[in-house]
């Protein structure tokens, strides 16, 4: 770190050092690509703040994260993320006025919420566009376990047993798209990834609901 650098440079180099050597999770990397520079973002269930810190440093994005876990809140503060300690349902309603963000992001959390449909509506109340990622319950590995073994699937992306999973509202790509259609929501971008192949092969593009492990959607209200 340059000792004679300006305060600004120093601040930048300090925050940039947060990621050195850390690969962004595949779904987060894609979200980062989708987000326009200089935009305003709300990250629901922002975890340890990795995405927001990356967006701040690489895309000049400003915004806030909502997070409930004390440990994660500590991590966010450490990364100099604006974090609000609150749960999603109460937090969104209590704190944020209509149309205050360009994007509202919810990564790997939708399936664990009480009312995913209401939450998606809330996302589009507060933000212009929503971005969600969730584990695809129709991935072939899940289908095989259910069809052939007759058990609730346990996979890399769904590591819990049925009795201790936080995922109370699992869905598939098709399910999500039906929900969007019913709620007058336009899907702007969709992609699927698996952990090793990132965006994956042409096969995955052809059969996303079968081969995609994690679904990523960008959407907005129909205009």
């Amino acid at each position: 770190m340059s000792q004679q650098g300006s305060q600004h440079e120093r601040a930048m180099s300090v925050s940039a050092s947060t990621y050195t050597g850390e690969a962004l999770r595949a779904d987060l990397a894609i979200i980062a690509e989708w987000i326009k520079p200089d935009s305003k973002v709300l990250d629901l269930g922002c975890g340890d703040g990795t995405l927001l810190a990356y967006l701040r440093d690489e895309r000049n994005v400003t915004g806030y994260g909502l997070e409930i876990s004390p440990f994660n809140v500590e991590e966010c503060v450490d990364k100099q993320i604006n974090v609000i300690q609150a749960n999603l349902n109460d937090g969104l309603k209590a704190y944020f006025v209509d149309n205050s963000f360009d994007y509202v992001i919810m990564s790997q959390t939708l399936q664990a919420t009480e009312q995913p449909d209401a939450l998606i509506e809330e996302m589009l109340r507060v933000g212009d566009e929503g971005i969600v990622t969730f584990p695809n319950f129709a991935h072939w590995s899940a289908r095989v376990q259910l069809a052939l073994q007759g058990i609730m699937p346990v996979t890399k992306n769904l590591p819990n047993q049925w009795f201790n999973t936080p995922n109370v509202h699992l869905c598939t790509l098709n399910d999500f798209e039906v929900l969007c259609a019913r709620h007058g929501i336009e899907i702007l971008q969709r992609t699927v990834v698996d952990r090793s192949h990132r965006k994956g092969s042409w096969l995955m593009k052809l059969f996303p609901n079968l081969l995609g492990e994690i679904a990523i959607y960008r959407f907005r209200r129909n205009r």
Partner: protein
Amino acid sequence: MPETIPDDSVGIVETQIIHFSEPLTLECGKTLSEYDIAYETYGELNADASNAILICHALSGDQHAAGYNSMEDRKPGWWESAIGPGKPIDTNTFFVVSINNLGGCKGSTGPNTINPETGKYWGPDFPIVTVKDWILCQHRFMHALNIEKWCAMIGGSLGGMQVLQWTIDYPDLLDHAIVIAAAPKLSAQNIAFNEVARQSIMSDPDFCEGYYLEKSTVPRRGLMLARMLGHITYLSDDSMRDKFGRELREGKLNFGFDVDFQVESYLRYQGSSFVDRFDANTYLLMTKVLDYFDPAGDFDDDLAKALQKTSAKFMVISFTSDWRFAPERSQEIVKALLQAEKPVSYVEVEASQGHDAFLIPIPHYMNVFGSHMRNIARDLPAREVGNKAEVAS
């Protein structure tokens, strides 16, 4: 008394006093022609005076926030848990200033000091001050120390309210605002508790309409009652249950009106030891300062509007079992900051200790606080971080 000073304490500190001879016109319309402000400092001011932090005290606090005034002191300053070398408010990095606000009773001009115009104690004639008056005073005080702006202001409870008011009154003269266990204004219930406290003091026959010092007496019973009541609101139901339960002091019921339960004994002790260190008129004054605090009042009751101009970055902290200034009250501040699109982090610490939790080194609280302060330290101009040798080279 400390036999040895712990390594993470600022050690022996001395109260200093600055005399201000420029008159100060207060919100109530009255003018103080001159006044003293008592303060303590910990750590060293750096070359460009960019590492100064102001600590704002709460209702019954004073300038003695950390360390010991002498080896005979039974206890360290009121925020020893957070201020010191290696602690969240790290005195190796920051120049920490703690003042006794105007109207206090620990060396700053207040009801227990002499009114130069009459040669007698101010007593009840000391004007009612407000948080805004304090901020005006703190601003003059800052310049008297040759500091252009505070790197951070930190306070709990009434202290947090001062931080909030500063960000409104001097929006450019603060980098970091840390508002702990505070509220944007008092609720009717808060004011009601304050009124009972005032009534207990004022109805004590020894109060003598506030001129008790002239008569060499003290409204002991009234002030003690006020403190006992206050103390109940600082603790939570759970923390009282944990601390005392229904434990009996003598192991049996006495079938009388004297102390049966430990909690009674505790409250009496707290009340009576408070009388020895605090002035009743100052207590009355401080409760009024609290009641009158309403920074949004000047901005159509819109706190977001009040905060619109501030350039400070905020951290707001609350405690789950605090019912005096509950998390919901801190959330009101956070909501206003979000509406004003200001940088803010909000931490709601799981704690059983009630309002008092802000003085207790709860791990999650100290971790977040410490990590935030280390970030602030890192963003100080580079040459000022670390040892002085770097500056010279």
